[in-house]
């Protein structure tokens, strides 16, 4: 038999399992036509840390927005058009000179998808999930984010109900910047809380 156009290598066991799931779920009418392609396209191109960066930049630029954001993260984030799965209860925690926040999910990989996209590999790995709770200061230092002893570290364990997003401190020297310029300064890691700006 000649090679088909689409498959030049045999399917791995996990690929076969996923294909079987897809066939089963499609047969049960749970997967609308084009759904997989649409979800994939969105998460690869539209949903990611750039969304969270816009939220952070708005909070830096607009004190009224920042108040709303800290009071009701879900609603304030929805003002910018972001929401959906894993975003029903978004809580924004603010870094200050005295307090540093960091997020983790100890049980699985809960993460604020609408504003950060899908989590990076290390966020999902057991060492991060265990150590960020047990020894956050040491782990943060190892990850390139050493903090003075006087800075309090607050670790937020994501749960079924709540997803957290860190509002980093606005960097010095950014007074005249536009919101778009500010957004370009905001990194994913700063919104997880494993980096400072």
């Amino acid at each position, binding site marked *: 038999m000649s090679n088909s156009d689409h498959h030049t290598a045999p399917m791995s066991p996990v690929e076969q399992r*996923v294909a079987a*799931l897809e066939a*089963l779920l499609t047969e049960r009418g749970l997967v609308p036509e084009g759904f997989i392609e649409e979800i994939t396209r*969105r*998460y690869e191109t*539209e949903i*990611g840390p750039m969304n969270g960066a816009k939220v952070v930049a708005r909070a830096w630029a607009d004190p009224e927005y920042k108040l709303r954001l800290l009071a009701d993260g879900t609603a304030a984030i929805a003002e910018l058009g972001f929401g959906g*799965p894993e975003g029903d209860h978004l809580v924004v925690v603010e870094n200050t000179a005295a307090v540093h926040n960091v997020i983790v999910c100890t049980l699985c990989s809960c993460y604020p998808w609408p504003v950060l996209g899908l989590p*990076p590999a290390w966020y999902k790995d057991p060492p991060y999930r265990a150590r960020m709770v047990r020894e956050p200061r040491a782990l943060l230092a190892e990850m390139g984010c050493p903090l003075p002893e006087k800075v309090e570290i607050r670790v937020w364990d994501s749960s079924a109900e709540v997803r957290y997003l860190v509002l980093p401190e606005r960097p010095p020297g950014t007074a005249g910047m536009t919101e778009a310029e500010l957004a370009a300064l905001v990194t994913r*890691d700063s919104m997880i809380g494993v980096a400072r700006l």
Partner: protein
Amino acid sequence: MTTPLSLSGLDLPRRNGELAFDAPWQSTVFALAAAVIENGFGGDPEPFRQQLIRAIAAEPGRPYWESWTAALEELVP
């Protein structure tokens, strides 16, 4: 419903860009889980999340998206 995701247009470039998926089967299992949550459980992610927690606890070293696959297989017998 057509999609559980609401978005607005975005113009910032992707930052810190780890690709979300390393292979097509990973995005497929992700989308299948989203479809089951939305169309099988009325948008409630908790049943899937509980299966994922069990799957990860059962084999902590297993590759992440394989745990998703195992969780989905348990959820949809």
